[in-house]
């Protein structure tokens, strides 16, 4: 112990002890606020949504193919399908492009070029989702009409817009994962006579696998929850899509479009849609958690 501390008066010592306690409590309260917010949302959603699930029947609700509130028909299967197709479609496209961009930034591009591209991709994350939707409506939708005909507002338009929206998440998380691969692996590979590309795809990328997988799963989470941009480009028809050019209505869009005027069972069915959506998001988060835990063990 050093002399200065030993000379501290008992009163001051006590003060520090109290300060310590207070600081701890502040941390605890802030963490509690986050947990509380989550619990309140969950409780609210379930209280509002469960009656509808009980009345309509969970099975009928998630497998019904007709959504017709005026006729008391509440089946959200087309919306579940739309949400899943839009999410996985965009995660595949955005995930692939994002991964390649991340590899460019981490392994290929000279430093100055990476330092130009990286902030631009980060900026993509800062664009409000309504602007994405607007861009989709003004550019992507007309383009689809021109190329393929149809209404333009479609599953395809949704996938394209969501792909762009998840890019920043995918790029920055994958780049971090790839950069975290020890330099010794790259050197070992190059010293064996492997080319730069062989090294990237056979050693570096496999070594970054779990981090990249985690980036992918988080991108899924971002895509499935997106609402505003989706409403503007999806077409919002609540029937089962038979082609990628059909208009669709993902679950988030369903809630946002109708909640303002719905009442009674209709409103409750919208909350129930939220419950189903939440279930998917929980599955995605648990997957991400498992992937990360496996990374720590591996």
């Amino acid at each position, binding site marked *: 112990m050093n002399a200065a501390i030993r000379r501290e008066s008992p009163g001051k010592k006590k003060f520090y002890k109290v300060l310590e306690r207070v600081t701890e409590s502040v941390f605890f309260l802030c963490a509690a606020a986050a947990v509380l917010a989550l619990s309140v949302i969950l409780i609210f959603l379930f209280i509002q949504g469960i009656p509808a699930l009980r009345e309509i029947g969970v099975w009928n609700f998630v497998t019904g193919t007709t959504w017709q509130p005026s006729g008391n028909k509440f089946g959200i299967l087309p919306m579940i399908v739309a949400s899943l197709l839009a999410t996985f479609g965009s995660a595949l496209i955005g995930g692939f492009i994002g991964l390649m961009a991340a590899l460019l930034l981490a392994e290929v591009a000279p430093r100055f070029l990476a330092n130009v591209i990286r902030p631009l991709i980060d900026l993509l994350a800062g664009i409000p989702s309504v602007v994405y939707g607007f861009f989709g409506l003004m550019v992507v939708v007309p383009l689809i009409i021109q190329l393929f005909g149809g209404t333009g507002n479609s599953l395809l338009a949704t996938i394209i817009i969501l792909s762009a929206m998840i890019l920043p998440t995918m790029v920055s998380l994958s780049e971090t994962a790839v950069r975290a691969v020890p330099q010794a692996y790259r*050197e070992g590979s190059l010293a*064996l006579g*492997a080319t730069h590309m062989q090294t990237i795809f056979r050693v570096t990328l496999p070594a970054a696998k779990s981090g990249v997988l985690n980036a992918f799963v988080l991108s899924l989470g971002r895509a499935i929850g997106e609402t505003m941009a989706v409403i503007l480009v999806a077409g919002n028809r609540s029937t089962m899509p038979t082609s990628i050019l059909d208009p669709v209505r993902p679950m988030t869009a369903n809630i946002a479009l109708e909640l303002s005027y719905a009442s009674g069972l209709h409103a409750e069915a919208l909350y129930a849609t939220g419950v189903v959506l939440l279930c998917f998001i929980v599955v995605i988060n648990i997957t991400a958690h498992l992937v990360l835990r496996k990374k720590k063990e591996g």
Partner: protein
Amino acid sequence: MSEVKMSAKDLRLWYGDFEALKTVSLDMNKNSVTALIGPSGCGKSTFLKTLNRMNDLVEGCRIEGDVRLDGEDIFQKGYDLALLRKRVGMVFQKPNPFPMSIYDNIAYGPRVHGIRKKKVLDEIVEKALRGAALWDEVHDRLRKSAMGLSGGQQQRLCIARVMAVEPEVVLMDEPTSALDPISTQRIEDLMAELKKKFTIVIVTHNMQQAARIADRTAFFLKGEIVEAGDTLQIFQQPRDKRTEDYITGRFG
């Protein structure tokens, strides 16, 4: 009797403004072990990394002079870098197995050089592991991760990985400095075996090690070779005062 396998002539190297090698010349003979000794930062590792052009990866690195492999200039334009590194293999200071199975680690080199047939790969893997005196310890767990091996085993795996691509020269950068004495001895024994097939160049901080294993020794100091010659001569009758001071432990 001794045929020159690799040679460096008037080699100069800069990292940015820092001149790391100042006009270094050295011949490395076939089927012999050449040891590079000297205090930290004297340029011996830098010199080693020039021989398979791993310094190309370092930003701001500039090289002048001549390095030849079988009389061929390795810095000539259009020289096949991948082929150079296949012919001149490298074992690093810290064992660096890839995070994959033991089998895949060894098969990695042959695979990137185009060997696909499983039977051929099986044979290469067994031969390389036997050559690195590791087969008996791992033959029943080839599919297990190489990360589960001990440090000494990992380093022998890295040696086996290099041998699997059938190099002509093997560069070793302090290959035993991270290992315990028993593992060190196994690798030294291995080197006596390996030099029958390969040309070995080894950087070491351990002077006893150089004396034990090397046929020829070069003493580096501040980016220059002070003295190079037969190991026995260097250790028993050094010509330069600085060499004598270093090997008798007066500095470094």
